[in-house]
């Protein structure tokens, strides 16, 4: 991919990033562009459907899946700033559409070219240093989103990218690989349990003394970031990996 024409990717921005964290989308584009990757944004995309899928509304989820297949048809490599959305495409779309051989085959094809951002940078492009830096030396800790970690096997990649950011000192939180308690609908269906799990996560994060908490997941960002912003300073800030890599951390 690094020879000849600059590579192209299609950005699968995800519904949460599109509507709630647009800067994350802009950051992902900035990082990729800086590395010489041309980024397309197929505008027909909306949502991968995992919220319906995890709630058990398979028919709704299937509709969303087919729309996604259409939106990303022939788009080349697809990059998403979300392990859960990339995981939805890679791990669940094919079986969700197994009722139709044609759709399942298209789903497998899409799955074969869909990546979460950090795994695309490190595994596909072979890059760990994207030229990012922080305005001052900062302790950074990483939260392993469950889908990125367990569905995609992504763990080394975000950490390598963080370590390469000038000024960043990566410290591991106890329980970094434990769920943050978001779980999509779970966070509003069982808010007390969700908050109890979250409190423990944040305790681990604050124990490190890090001032930045970085994640690849918009959902975890909502959950953990929402709690940290309620706590106020000197609580650490939650940031998406794309924002850190785009050098937007100081913003």
């Amino acid at each position: 991919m690094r020879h000849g024409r600059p590579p192209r990717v299609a950005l699968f921005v995800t519904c949460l990033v599109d509507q709630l964290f647009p800067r994350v989308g802009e950051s992902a584009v900035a990082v990729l562009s800086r590395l010489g990757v041309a980024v397309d944004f197929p505008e027909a995309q909306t949502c991968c459907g995992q919220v319906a899928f995890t709630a058990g509304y398979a028919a709704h989820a299937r509709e969303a899946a087919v729309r996604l297949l259409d939106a990303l048809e022939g788009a080349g490599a697809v990059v998403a700033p979300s392990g859960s959305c990339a995981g939805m495409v890679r791990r669940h779309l094919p079986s969700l559409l197994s009722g139709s051989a044609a759709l399942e085959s298209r789903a497998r094809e899409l799955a074969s070219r869909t990546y979460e951002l950090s795994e695309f940078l490190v595994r596909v492009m072979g890059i760990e240093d994207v030229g990012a830096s922080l305005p001052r030396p900062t302790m950074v800790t990483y939260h392993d989103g469950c889908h990125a970690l367990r569905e995609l096997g992504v763990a080394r990649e975000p950490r390598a990218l963080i370590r390469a950011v000038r000024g960043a000192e990566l410290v591991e939180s106890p329980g970094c690989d434990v769920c943050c308690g978001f779980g999509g609908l779970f966070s509003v269906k069982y808010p007390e349990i969700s908050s109890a799990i979250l409190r423990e996560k944040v305790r681990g994060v604050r124990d490190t003394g890090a001032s930045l908490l970085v994640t690849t997941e918009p959902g975890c960002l909502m959950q953990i970031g929402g709690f940290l912003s309620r706590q106020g300073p000197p609580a650490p800030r939650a940031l998406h990996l794309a924002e850190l890599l785009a050098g937007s951390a100081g913003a």
Partner: protein
Amino acid sequence: MAEPSAHRFREAARAALDSPGIQQALLRLDHFRHGRSRALEEVGPEAWQALQARGREVRRHTLEHLDHYLDLLARSVERAGGHVFFARDAREANEYVAGVARAHGVRTVIKGKSMVAEEMGVAGALEAMGVEAVETDLGEFIIQLAGEAPFHIIAPALHKSKEEVARLFAERLGLEPQSEIGALAGQAREVLRERFLRADMGMTGANFAVAETGTVVVVTNEGNGRMCTSLPRVHVATMGMERVLPRLEDLATFLPLLTRSATGQRITSYVTMVTGPRRGDEEDGPEEFHLVVLDNGRSRILADPELREALYCIRCGACLAACPVYSHIGGHAYGWVYPGPIGAVVTPALLGLARARDLPFASTLCGACREVCPLGIDIPRMLLKHRRELAEDRQGGGSAGERAAMALWRRAAGGPRAFRLAGLAARIAQWPVARRGLIRWLPPPLSGWTATRDLPAVAWRPFRARWRRRRADRPGQDRR
């Protein structure tokens, strides 16, 4: 065991979260986590994966030919001089056990730990006919005295502090309150020893039952297993019908999978293997041996290709300590014999979804359970299956509010224009509550979120609007 209360999950979970005693007790789960990771380090990843692969294959094969292996098991037990009873449900199983007790004039039964016996509620059935049924596993002994359900699959009294146990022994047994765990265990041992010696019947579970030899395997760390299998005149073992292994040598795979995953031990202090009753020249052992094999809905699970994997479970409890939900609410909230992730799959499957509607949703689907399961059981996949069934059944399904929300989502996700309009509608609707990009308060049903967390406001200019602007400013630079 008391009536299932899985339908009261919400209140029970809240009560557990608000209980300092339970929250304190849940910290003890670290012991299991450390035990397991030390064990895995010792075994090594390759050897462990080989054990797991072998374990899965044996379970798959056995379940595919379950009727053959159960038949073989029965013949082997009978050949060894034992009796086998296949019980369709708990009622039939309890009736059989009561019949055995009556036939032998049994007045005292000593019981080893058995989840299946809990499922049957056999202790209650025996008490109802005037037979004393005493739990000999220390944890079970404690919760029996307290009249409570098991809190954890292998440590049923995990939630009890030593002070609570001391008080319990003082109140219910009239003993001097002790402050040391060793002393408390000693008190229990004295009480139990007296029962051991006069018990007419022993009941145990079966961690495994070997078809080729008719051997029932019971693992304990306290030695109470063999007190129950070998001291009294009659031994009744209860097992779920899925617990059969084809050959004795399969234990070389399953014992380490069980003990390493449960407590980290290489092997438990006692591994008791009994084949039928005392024979001819043997000095020890019961005169009669009965094996009760319980279905109680397992054949339904077996027949469902999406749920069959739940029968691979060897009840090690590893999924409990790995689960963030269980780790904060403990076992009682799950309302029945089987707590934690495996409980969330099995309880609705055995009791029916309508009686346990919350359980499949009480999970973030993080997958930690699947990761630690020695048999690699894909619990999240089965929880999703339950969720699908609940969503499809209007009565059992989500609230009208949830269905309405899904319908709205479906409309919004229907295409880029609908999505843009939905975003616009959200930006307007949030106007009263959004301050500087954050929403700090929302009405029910979303108030649960804002009680502890801020929510990002829907962005004034979503990504796709910014992209279009960017493209308009730099035409020809990017395609599409």
